């Protein structure tokens, strides 16, 4: 009996081995020739676009807002040859560890063909190499750190403007328009915050201004009065902060009790949004932020704004400056997917390398937040920032005050 079991065991192993050699269902030529293969969908499956975003924590408004914009884009995108689109937005907490975790989750899901993200630069930097290996193209609506497009990545693209535009723009605005002579800088030590503060510092010095102090803070704390007192002793005209809302709002509050009450708080696209207003109240009055380039008003934008208000109960753009970019990145990816997908034998095939090339070749795409043409490094937006100021509890364009 024992011997019999052995034979059965050996035979079944052999059967498995031969099964591996059996000819597979023949793939279309476009898939066999594609280096990364095809994503295959049988009827009834959905084609997924991923998004890694901070959905919880102090900067959650960014992830919630941008994913809501993308949700509307997915609904507007209709279907690709009968297959439906779906958005898979996962929480990466805006941090590098979270970004890598979400990316690993996405690459293990064969239905994810592209990623509209990630949202924060640190999380994006950690995620890029993972998508690079798996052959999944990215189109970030909001990761602005300049380094991201200099690594030679084939998969990373962004419709966000680069901090190489934002930083010098902000420095020039501070020096020329606001007539700031002495500038102090604070940053949160992240890829994004420190990178931006360094760029601003350099450009401001080049403009002829004096950088009186540059300090780093520890993100996640709630008491920065000590460091602000030390900054105050250098009596700057303005304080530039490179970082996100969570710390930005605390700093704007505590500036009023540390001798910086006369200095201007100047934030970035990461400190803009409704959360900043509710957390600072009257202390936030007169605070500046630089945000994504003006998006031209258009019927399509009005339609989106109405849909956003109806679906989520808030004005589009009140939570973060990237509502429209969130829509655009998901919508642009959907349109590119449509252009490369094909049906063969009742199945939908999306060749992955062809999709990567097609995203990089995006040309003259007209979105809600601008018209995008990707350059060979994945930079699809060359706009300059606009500046906003808090007036009577609302963000308004600074030049119209």
């Amino acid at each position, binding site marked *: 009996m024992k011997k019999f079991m052995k034979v059965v065991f050996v035979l079944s192993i052999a059967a498995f081995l031969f099964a591996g050699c059996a000819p597979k269902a023949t793939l279309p030529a476009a898939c066999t020739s594609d280096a990364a293969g095809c994503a295959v969908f049988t009827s009834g499956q959905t084609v997924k676009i991923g998004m890694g975003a901070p959905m919880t924590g102090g900067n959650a408004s960014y992830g919630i807002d941008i994913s809501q914009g993308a949700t509307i884009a997915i609904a507007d995108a209709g279907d690709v040859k009968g297959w439906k689109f779906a958005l898979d937005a996962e929480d990466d907490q805006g941090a590098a560890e979270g970004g890598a975790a979400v990316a690993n989750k996405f690459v293990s899901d064969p239905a994810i063909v592209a990623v509209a993200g990630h949202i924060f630069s640190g999380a994006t930097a950690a995620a890029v190499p993972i998508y690079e290996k798996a052959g999944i193209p990215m189109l970030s609506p909001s990761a602005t750190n300049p380094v991201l497009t200099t690594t030679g990545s084939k998969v990373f693209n962004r419709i966000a403007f680069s901090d190489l535009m934002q930083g010098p723009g902000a420095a020039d605005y501070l020096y020329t328009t606001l007539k700031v002579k002495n500038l102090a800088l604070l940053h949160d030590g992240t890829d994004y915050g420190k990178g931006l503060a360094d760029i601003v510092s350099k450009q401001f010095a080049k403009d002829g201004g004096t950088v009186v102090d540059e300090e*780093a803070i520890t993100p996640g704390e709630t008491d920065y009065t000590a460091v602000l007192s030390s900054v105050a002793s250098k009596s700057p005209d303005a304080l530039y902060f490179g970082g996100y809302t969570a710390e930005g709002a605390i700093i704007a509050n505590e500036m009023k009790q540390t001798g910086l009450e006369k200095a201007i708080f100047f934030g970035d696209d990461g400190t803009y949004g409704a959360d900043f207003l509710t957390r600072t109240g009257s202390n936030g009055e007169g605070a500046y932020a630089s945000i994504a380039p003006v998006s031209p008003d258009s019927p399509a934008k009005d339609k989106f704004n109405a849909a956003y208000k109806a679906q989520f109960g808030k004005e589009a753009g009140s939570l973060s400056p990237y509502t429209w970019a969130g829509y655009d990145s998901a919508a642009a990816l959907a349109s590119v997917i449509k252009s490369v997908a094909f049906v063969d034998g009742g199945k939908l095939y999306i060749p992955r390398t062809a999709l990567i090339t097609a995203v990089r070749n995006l040309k003259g795409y007209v979105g809600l937040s601008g018209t995008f043409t990707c350059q060979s490094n994945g930079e699809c937006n060359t706009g300059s920032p606009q500046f906003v100021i808090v007036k009577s509890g609302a963000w308004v364009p600074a030049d119209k005050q």
Partner: protein
Amino acid sequence: MHHSPTKSIARKAVIAIMTADIPHDLKKKGNQLLKLIRPLLGGIVGLFLIYRLYVILIVEHPYGPDTWTRLLIAGLILGGVYSLIAIGYTLVYGILFMINFAHGDVMMLGAFGGYFVFEALNALKVGIDAKSNFLNVYPYYSIIIAFIVGMTVAALTGYFLEKIAYRPLRKAPRLVPLISAIGASIFLENAVELLFSPQLRNYTNPDILHRGSGWTIVINHSNVIVPYTGVFSFLLSAILLVIVYTIVRKTRLGRAMRAVALDKKTAALMGVDVDSTISQTFILSGALAGAAGVMFGIHNGLIYYYTGFIPGIKAFTAAVLGGIGNLPGAMLGGMFLGIVESVGPAALGIDFQLKDVLAFVILILVLIFKPSGLLGESLAEEKL
């Protein structure tokens, strides 16, 4: 947010320190060498600190008296909160010889208790004016209610924590309750995250305690603001410290606590109810943490499920610095740590991001030259 790695690293470090066990023979051989090297290294670092102080304070003096005053105010307020939490660590350590690692999270629960009271009272309309609500019509009552609720929530948490997580392990080796405490800390954080969502919450203060406003003193032609919330926190922690000291020194409960700290068995034979004394100790330490939590919320304004962890670690450091198990030591350690954190980086001319490094360097220096902490772990007779 950005904390998960720091959190787990800090926890691992604590476990590593607690479990570090050098083989006996190695210890003996190394002892002679260590005896020389440690004070030497400590001396070098100490001398360097003094040199930096000299350079900054005497040679460069980049800050005026207004800045020093501001830094000192920030330090005193921070020190008050640290002291209150540190007392909780020390009380429990004095009796059970265990580190209640979840103490910071008990503080966080207290902060949430106060938060919900303020929110509820803010929504409660009083009188004919549509804008008037309980919070601003009766601000003093509101603050008292918030503290009572916050302290009660935290005290109950402390009570049940001991009952569920520590009491069954009282006879186990010292490491076991520590691990259980770390588990309790993770449990409390995640429970709050799931219950109240991970969003940051904004403390709604009554108008009389508006954050950021305060008395103005003009020093060096510059307005130095002494925030109301800060003065309030500082005074309240001073009062609570005096009350705790009186309880431990002068009351029946205090005597029972000291007896249990001295010798559990003998105390039981003399008719002291050991279990109930330990429970009451946890209630007392929890209530203090709760008060610290509400104070933290009122002064700092933003709370979430992770709020308690860092102050907890810092207060633990403060307790060790002052000599764990020693009440005045914990108060002194807390104040010292708060002031070092805010004044230290400026006085040494280093980046403010390094304030934690500085705090821990000083902790190590103190432990090298006085391993029992600043005031020394009191002998059993004087413990508590």
